[in-house]
């Protein structure tokens, strides 16, 4: 069977994202032809503002160059505006005569700037701000003219105005409302924004309607409703956008404001025709920001490549303004009607304003000015419907509240002394980062990490690095939400996982070969791929030992002096005199320099030589505690009802049972459990990846806690009555994490990413799904039959690398 023909009209951000997703999912399914009216390959339209402001160049914002299209076998017609769409013949034709037939069509024509039809709007020098050409026109104009006016004090208008100012023009913004960015800001924030921009030299006329554009052939000025006038020789209209639906309408596709599509991104009129991006209307809404359009693109790709059902259900969006020195964040219903429950913090002098609109202790809207570091956190909580009742009084001081780990306020980065260490793991100072950014021209965290190592280890300083980037670069910095896995590939974790699943790839090498890896991979991607193949095809995939970090390969933690530590399992932290005697005897026999009780209720033998590991394990004859792996670590317990006068449940037995059933499991990151016998919670179960707390007549199950770099208390998942239910829900929860977690992502950030409600739905409420997950977990557990230490004792010849080779001669370098 030949390939299907896929044609796309529009070579912009949403459309090309869809094409990328399609190619990633099904590289050989379609012959792809793309028509773009502009003469450029697709570029990052968002960055036009920084281009205009002179902070970056057009070359730097190209997303895929023409070579990329060629290498993916895509036929690209640039400067080819499609003027005819014949659905009965399944044919499109461009102005320049180029034609293409399709089996499937994607319309991704974006939108057009809305030019207000006031008298004089067709004069020279009146323009919108949408594409590279507009940008070039403005840059040219700035060389010859001095006075610019911008109609529209929204996001786009202000970014345009700032750019023109940077080009040396005298700029006045005319806004018909009293508040700037009134779609995103309330009065207070709007006023602060205006103050800040005025201080940068921008001029304003608010609550002002323009009635006429004056001049001869070219614009010379504006007249307002109140009789006032303003001289200008360039006028940018940024008064909104209109979905570009001309072609769709002509061809009889049902359009309202935009081209109406289903949840699968197909037009409601013709299932062979899809639409995506700003030209689309979905459930009555159109979108003008890329985040929701990328979601649409993903769903479209899913649907068109026949991967199954996935719905686009609409998006909630948040806004940031890309003007340097001015931080604005807004999302949701930020106004709050009369009588709304509002928490706010206002420091006019310091230029900080934060307001949360609440309903039933849940965030409904956010508006922030000055210090916007917590914006994304609040936005996440808003989407998750997180109950914030016990944080109300401190919330606005810092939600992510991490002090030196750097999530609190852009000002922090700006005020920080040059020699302050930003990345504690790699000892990188602020100055080193700033120097690297300036000298090497870095624009993303990934580049900073590659160049300086900052944020390359625990990631605790990632927020701070972003802030330094933002403070150093101003507008040129765009936070990336979906970074590729590492420098060896362009694919995200999800894409790699999906490809492994679809193509049934069973080893690290096969994955790297099939998915076009650069080089032989690194310490980030290889362990991740090794995990994904093992997770997706347990018992079938090949575990690649050379793709595991030293700790996991050796089944012992490497120490700073190159020796190792040995931590055997002590189930639930309960031991016996015999076991203690054996451990003590062996510690003496092998001259173990340090014997330590760990924070995980067991014993650590530190400073063991590599060649002593296997003999020591043999003598110990205890299972490995997996203290070195992205695996099940400890299950901490308290004494519980067996002894404790308050105990309501036998937490020790429950903990031991959990540890015995779940040991040897591998996860995206380490997993720690705990069981307490009553709500006094002596086992600290509410800061574990999963914690169980005994209550009268049952157990509470808590999830998503972390006691490490960024402390997070658990959320309550559910309350159950029996031990069996604890086991089943624990297995379902852990399996869900195994399947959807990104490698190296612990359950706390995972839970915040997925959302508590969705996880609850998947592992508690949807009983069928819960049972299916638990069954998959059991099936996986059934493949974990051997203890790794035992395996090495029994098959020492397969593990020669533990033995050093001795050649008692002198060598020459």
């Amino acid at each position: 069977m030949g390939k299907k023909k896929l044609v796309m009209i529009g070579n912009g951000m949403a459309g090309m994202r869809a094409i990328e997703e399609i190619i990633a999912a099904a590289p050989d399914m379609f012959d792809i032809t793309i028509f773009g009216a502009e003469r450029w390959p697709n570029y990052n339209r968002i960055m036009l503002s920084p281009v205009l402001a002179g902070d970056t160049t057009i070359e730097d914002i190209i997303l895929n160059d023409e070579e990329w299209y060629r290498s993916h076998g895509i036929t690209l017609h640039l400067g080819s505006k499609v003027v005819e769409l014949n659905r009965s013949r399944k044919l499109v034709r461009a102005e320049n005569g180029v034609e293409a037939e399709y089996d499937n069509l994607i319309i991704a024509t974006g939108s057009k700037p809305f030019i207000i039809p006031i008298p004089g709007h067709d004069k020279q020098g009146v323009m919108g701000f949408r594409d590279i050409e507009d940008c070039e026109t403005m840059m040219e104009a700035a060389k010859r003219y001095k006075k610019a006016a911008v109609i529209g004090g929204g996001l786009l208008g202000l970014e345009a105005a700032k750019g023109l100012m940077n080009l040396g023009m005298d700029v006045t913004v005319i806004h018909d409302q009293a508040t700037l960015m009134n779609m995103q800001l309330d009065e207070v924030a709007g006023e602060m924004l205006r103050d800040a921009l005025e201080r940068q030299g921008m001029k304003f006329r608010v609550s002002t309607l323009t009635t006429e554009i004056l001049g001869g052939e070219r614009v010379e000025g504006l007249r307002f409703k109140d009789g006032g006038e303003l001289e200008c020789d360039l006028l940018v209209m940024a008064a909104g956008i209109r979905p570009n639906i001309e072609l769709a309408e002509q061809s009889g596709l049902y359009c309202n404001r935009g081209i109406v599509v289903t949840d699968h991104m197909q037009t409601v009129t013709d299932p062979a025709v899809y639409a995506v991006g700003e030209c689309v209307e979905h459930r009555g809404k159109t979108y003008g920001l890329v985040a929701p359009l990328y979601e649409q693109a993903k769903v479209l790709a899913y649907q068109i490549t026949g991967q199954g059902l996935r719905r686009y259900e609409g998006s909630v969006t948040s806004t940031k303004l890309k003007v340097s020195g001015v931080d604005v964040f807004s999302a949701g219903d930020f106004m709050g009607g009369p009588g709304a429950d509002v928490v706010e913090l206002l420091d006019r002098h310091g230029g900080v304003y934060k307001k949360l609109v609440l309903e039933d202790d849940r965030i409904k809207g956010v508006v922030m000015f000055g210090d916007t570091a917590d914006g994304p956190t609040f936005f996440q909580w808003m989407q998750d419907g997180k109950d914030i009742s016990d944080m109300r009084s401190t919330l606005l001081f810092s939600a992510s509240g991490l002090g030196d780990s750097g999530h609190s306020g852009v000002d922090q980065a700006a005020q920080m002394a040059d020699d302050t260490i930003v990345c504690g793991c790699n000892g990188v100072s602020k100055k080193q980062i700033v120097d690297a950014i300036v000298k090497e021209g870095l624009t993303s965290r990934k580049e900073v990490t590659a160049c300086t190592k900052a944020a390359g280890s625990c990631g605790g300083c990632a927020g701070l690095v972003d802030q330094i980037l933002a403070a150093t670069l101003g507008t040129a910095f765009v936070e990336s939400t979906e970074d590729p896995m590492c420098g060896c590939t362009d694919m995200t974790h999800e894409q790699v996982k999906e490809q492994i699943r679809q193509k049934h790839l069973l080893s690290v090498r096969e994955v790297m070969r099939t998915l076009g890896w650069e080089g032989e991979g690194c310490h980030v991607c290889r362990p991740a791929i090794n995990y994904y193949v093992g997770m997706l095809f347990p018992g079938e995939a090949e575990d690649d030992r050379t793709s595991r970090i030293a700790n996991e390969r050796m089944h012992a933690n490497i120490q700073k002096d190159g020796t190792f530590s040995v931590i055997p399992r002590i189930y639930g932290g309960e031991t016996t005199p015999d076991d203690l005697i054996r451990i003590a005897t062996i510690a003496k026999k092998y001259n173990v320099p340090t014997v330590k009780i760990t924070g995980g209720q067991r014993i650590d033998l530190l400073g063991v030589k590599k060649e002593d590991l296997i003999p020591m394990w043999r003598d110990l004859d205890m299972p490995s505690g997996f203290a070195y792996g992205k695996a099940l670590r400890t299950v901490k317990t308290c004494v519980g009802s067996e002894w404790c006068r308050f105990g309501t449940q036998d937490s020790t037995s429950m903990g031991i049972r959990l540890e015995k059933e779940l040991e040897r499991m591998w996860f995206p990151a380490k997993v720690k459990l705990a069981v307490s016998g009553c709500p006094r919670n002596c086992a600290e179960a509410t800061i574990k990846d999963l914690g169980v707390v005994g209550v009268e007549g049952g157990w509470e199950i808590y999830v998503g806690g972390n006691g490490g770099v960024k402390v997070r208390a658990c959320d309550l998942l559910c309350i159950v009555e029996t031990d069996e239910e604890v086991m089943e829900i624990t297995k379902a929860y852990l399996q869900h994490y195994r399947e959807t977690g990104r490698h190296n992502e612990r359950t706390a950030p995972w839970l915040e990413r997925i959302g508590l409600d969705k996880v609850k739905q998947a592992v508690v409420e949807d009983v069928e799904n819960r049972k299916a997950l638990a069954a998959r977990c059991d099936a996986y557990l059934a493949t974990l039959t051997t203890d790794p230490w035992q395996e090495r004792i029994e098959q020492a010849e397969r593990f020669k690398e533990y033995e050093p080779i001795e050649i008692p001669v002198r060598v020459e370098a």
Partner: protein
Amino acid sequence: MSDWIEVCKLDEIPKGAGRTVRTADAVIALFRLSDDSVRAVENRCPHKGGPLAEGIVSGRDVLCPLHNQRIHLDTGEVAPPDSGCVRVFETRIEDDRVLLRVGA
């Protein structure tokens, strides 16, 4: 005068991984790369002395197991942004035997 000495058989080094070799005056990390060639460098990372033999091998580089500095096995040089250098030893493969050049 220098000479070659047999260290081990090629298949005694796991493919794509390293082994520790102790000599009279140095500890060496001996690697078998994915193309079955071998490399030998001093088993001490220039950063903080990490045992390179336990690192992940990627192409012609090894990533130190302690803090992931990347050491090029042909030259012994540490890849930027880090810097430093480890001693490199000459190796040779004859049939299935791995040979190391030794001093007098």
